[in-house]
């Protein structure tokens, strides 16, 4: 990964796909919207405009107002910000955890491997959503950071399995064997020689994990178990507007549209990255691995 040539080649192969370019553009727009948007609008997500209840979009309220007169644009921007932050943090944490666990299990083998893989199996048996929904009420009073930790803790297992497999084959390679014989410590071997070889996989996986985390978070918030009022996320906004989707469509379709656009963009970029990093795919040849966005909640 360190060589500039490879990085540039990957970049070139990534941006050559029209889907990836579109995805990147959409992501940039969404990030700008989420972090610059609050300064553009005179309203904040908690402000109530009593003169405008259930107003369709107009010049004063760009995306209309909701049932109690809150500005939908301000709310959507705030919710998008929260969802993006949660998605990014969860992806970083869960991929990091997966790398550590997978590399340790694969490199040390024996009982370490057996115990860690038993934990992975155990956590895979229970649908993550189930555990999340049981544990979430306890986190209600804590900040949303606790929610990030919980989501990260439940999304690393499949990736860890893949990293373990890669590490097992890397362990037998000569440069690793030589390093071991020279007396390099295992931690250093893992950090310097093993993990860089899984980096391309991890980067791709982290990208796809962002989409998965956002989906899980909105799902939890939809059931009222995730982000708590007065704070909002895309999930809570969609949940609130569900029963009036046909009467006041602007309350439902703006958050839903942004959510779908974000997940779609992230997955497009992640899929293109995966194809570009996969040495088995030459330019223009079909990807040999399946490009499937993964998500805790479908």
């Amino acid at each position, binding site marked *: 990964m360190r060589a500039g040539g490879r990085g540039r080649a990957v970049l070139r192969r990534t941006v050559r796909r029209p889907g990836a370019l579109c995805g990147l553009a959409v992501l940039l727009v969404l990030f700008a919207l989420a972090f610059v948007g609050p300064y553009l609008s005179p309203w904040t997500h908690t402000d109530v405009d009593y003169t405008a209840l259930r107003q369709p979009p107009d010049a004063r309220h760009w995306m209309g107002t909701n049932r109690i007169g809150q500005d939908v644009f301000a709310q959507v921007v705030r919710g998008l910000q929260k969802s993006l932050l949660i998605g990014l943090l969860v992806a970083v944490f869960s991929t990091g955890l997966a790398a550590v666990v997978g590399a340790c299990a694969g490199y040390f083998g024996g009982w370490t491997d057996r115990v860690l893989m038993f934990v992975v199996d155990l956590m895979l048996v229970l649908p993550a959503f189930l555990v999340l929904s049981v544990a979430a009420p306890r986190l209600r009073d804590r900040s949303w950071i606790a929610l990030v930790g919980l989501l990260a803790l439940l999304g690393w297992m499949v990736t860890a399995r893949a990293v373990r497999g890669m590490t097992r084959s890397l362990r037998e390679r000569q440069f690793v064997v030589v390093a071991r014989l020279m007396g390099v410590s295992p931690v250093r071997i893992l950090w310097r020689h093993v993990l860089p070889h899984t980096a391309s996989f991890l980067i791709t996986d982290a990208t796809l994990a962002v989409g998965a985390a956002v989906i899980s978070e909105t799902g939890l918030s939809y059931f009222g178990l995730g982000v708590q009022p007065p704070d909002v996320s895309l999930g809570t906004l969609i949940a609130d507007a569900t029963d009036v989707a046909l009467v006041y469509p602007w309350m*439902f379709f703006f958050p839903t549209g942004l959510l779908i656009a974000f997940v779609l963009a992230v997955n497009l970029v992640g899929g293109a990255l995966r194809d570009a990093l996969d040495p088995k795919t030459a330019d223009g040849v079909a990807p040999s691995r399946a490009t499937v966005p993964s998500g805790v909640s479908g």
Partner: protein
Amino acid sequence: MLSLILRRLVHCTILFLTSVVLTYALASTALDPRAYFEGRQPPPPARVVDAELARLGMDDRAPLPERFAHWAGRALHGDLGPTIDGESVNAEFGRRVGVSVRLLLIGTVVGTAVGVLAGMWGAVRHGRPGDRILTVFSFAVLCVPTFVLALLLKTGALAVNRAAGSQVVLYTGEHTPGLQGDWTVQLRDTAAHLLLPAICVALPAIASYSRYQRAATLDVLGADHLRTARAKGLTPGRALLRHGLRISLVPVSVFFAYGMLTLFTGAVFTEAVFGWPGMGSWLVDSVQKGDVNSVVAVNIFAAAVVLLAGLLADVLHALLDPRVRQP
């Protein structure tokens, strides 16, 4: 083959028992049944709440191991304890399990069958408009969270009904309450209610299975033995079915166990949105009430379904790939 299944069975049983212990511990520490009683109007005296919690075996003052031992002792005899409202968890389980199994079964069967067929079709038509449309479609479906998909379907049904001026598409419940008529009327009614939830559960499954099957088939299409089959005179379709399908199903069978996890989660959302009295909506209700025993019961069901899917995937894998069968 038999020893492989036996070994997996032992592994699964250990996993199952560990997961039951863990979920009981998690549910009893995370949920707060006391708040459910204290939140009533008018609030009952503390003594009454204590007595009620003790009767249900959810008393948070008793140590956790003691509560678990009490629960497990009954569970071993097939009694999963009372719900927070004092009814039997077993009875509620029996009422709801059929609803969920119906949804999961349809999702699995339709999802795998249509998904595998669509994936093979996409691989054969690789790069042509049909394949492109399939790819875009499955990608779009996978990027829509299940609850949004369910909501969109429901909104669409509402719009259709409003345009038609009558109930053309049904979208709440799993049958019409108090419907009179013989079994054909009942069956038609149930099928009509099943339509939208079934689409909602099956669509994501179709989308993901078709992606995996497409990639696996593309890998096989270039293989030497398939070229040999063609050279010996088989038509492309026959060659693919006789010599390609079996190999391409191997990676998909590995995915089957994970697929069940996603399917189960999808069913939770589908049941909640369409108002089906299944395990998923039970979970959501019981978490909100702090009903420990019911939550554990749903967990047991989920773990059993997922492990069964894993076992089935292992057997399928062994059947498809003779190398796995050798000890």
